[in-house]
């Protein structure tokens, strides 16, 4: 995701400043713009919303969703929920790791792919499930996973 002008931050702060308990919603907006929560943008947001940076970090590090570093271009999430695990998710991770040369939780050096294991994403009826960015791959077979991921990345 391309970095945008810091001009976005005042607009986000203005949108949420007067709504009670809206820090998380403001951070969602921020991450929506940058793909992660950059430190300087968080600092700026805090100043404008009257929230100390420490509290912003408390929130961003508590919640799984917020990232403090720029992720890869394509985010591959392999569900490790009970049903997906039963139906072979570990093998999917192994195949992807081997192909991409990275472990789960890492990004490829060219910043194209980020591979992560996630907890149940609530599609247990479709197990095993992998998501590539926003696209959901259902009932994935180990032999096909690598091709499917590349096809998604190409289509994106």
């Amino acid at each position, binding site marked *: 995701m391309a970095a945008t002008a810091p001009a976005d931050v005042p607009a986000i702060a203005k949108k949420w400043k007067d709504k009670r*308990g809206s820090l998380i919603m403001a951070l969602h907006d921020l991450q929506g713009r940058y793909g992660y929560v950059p430190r300087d943008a968080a600092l700026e947001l805090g100043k404008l919303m009257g929230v100390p940076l420490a509290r912003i970090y408390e929130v961003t590090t508590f*919640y799984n969703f917020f990232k403090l570093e720029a992720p890869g271009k394509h985010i591959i999430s392999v569900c490790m929920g009970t049903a997906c695990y039963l139906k072979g998710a570990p093998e999917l991770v192994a195949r992807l790791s081997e192909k991409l040369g990275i472990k789960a939780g890492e990004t490829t050096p060219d910043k194209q792919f980020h591979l992560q294991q996630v907890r149940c994403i609530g599609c247990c009826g479709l197990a095993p499930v992998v998501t590539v960015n926003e696209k959901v791959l259902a009932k994935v077979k180990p032999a096909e996973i690598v091709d499917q991921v590349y096809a998604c990345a190409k289509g994106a």
Partner: protein
Amino acid sequence: MTLYGFSQPTHWNGQELPRIISRLFDVPDGHRLEVARRHGAYATIGPALFDRAPYEIIHEVAESGLRGRGGAGFPTGVKWGFVPRAPGKPVYLVINADEGEPGTFKDRLCLTRDPHLLIEGMICTGYALGVRTAYIYVRGEMLPQICILNQALREAYDAGLLGERIAGSRYSLDIFVHRGAGAYICGEETGLINSLEGFKGQPRLKPPFPAVSGAFGAPTVVNNVETIMAVPYIVQHGAKAYRRWGTEKSPGSKLFSVSGDIARPGVYEVPLGMPFMEFFALAGGLVGELLGCIPGGSSAPVLTAEETRRATMDYESLSSLKSMLGSGAVTPFNTTRDPVLILQTLTRFYAHESCGQCTPCREGTGYVDRVLDALIDGHGGDGDVDLLKSLADQYEPMTTICAFGPGAAWPVQSFVSKFRPYFEAYIAKNPQRQRTRDLAGVRPGAFW
């Protein structure tokens, strides 16, 4: 947006199946106001609701015996009764749509297929409790559902079903959607309230209960999506009609999400009290030979095959088997599966999701996870099965602020006691199993 088909027969074994929550689940475009209205949505929003006093609505829901569908099964009418009369502060209604328990995927379907039933239920509930502002707290990952919900809210506002003076009555209600950010603990009602206020979602000590002092220090009722979606039916048809389904202590119907070794995984609405084996047949039958079943979401103590065969899907039957109905997530597994590895996915989940507030849970969940990892990697010792159990015993009920600790302990305790030989088999493979484990070598703590 079709992630799951919803296809259940109208009748099963000669009996009609209830369609209280799932009425519009298989109607194309049922999430659009126009279509929903053609199928009877918002029938209660008018004299059926506003000509009755709020306390009559609370009474009707209490009479229906409706119990919370999020997991705890607390009687909804009783919860509503805790809200003080004339508190001198606003009363908030918060809908818990932070569904994140492994195996549970019913609320997602509710939001996708029939958001208007949720809104209708919120109007009924809001009227009964004197609520002016309500929130829907949706799990952050459910972006498509948030879009559907926002669209439904816009439609309802445009039709005069929300906002000032709903449908010409004197009652006004505003609904806001709040997006979570990926923390299982925010499904706990006080954690959810903290998150709603913009803080990290660590649970609060109760009392004070949210009904007395919740969001922003004001009385707050937190209810699950499915619970609220049952309310319009009760308002429209009465408690007696609702009690046609289910058992004496578990009246009504419930959505069950079934996954694992089952032929047709998905969501089904069935009357409470149905035998598990009959339910499996309804869902296309089990695949392979049943070894065990997680009956109510990942926290629910596992059942052996024998227990599953005599269990029925209601609160009493499962609590008599020392398990629970929970959120209605049913995961049967067959004899080709390894219970030790199933438990490992659960201990990993709980170690990751522990919020870190209470020592027994923060340290214990990580400790258990690492002992189990060592055991699976071939480094198990003779005392390890008992060690796992004794560690889990440290975060049982009454040891932590919220129910997460107990919910993390129950799968460990139940798996190691009911499937002990599988654990012993791993240990037997280690030639050095008699060596005493160097406990200092196993790092405690959930964070690594």
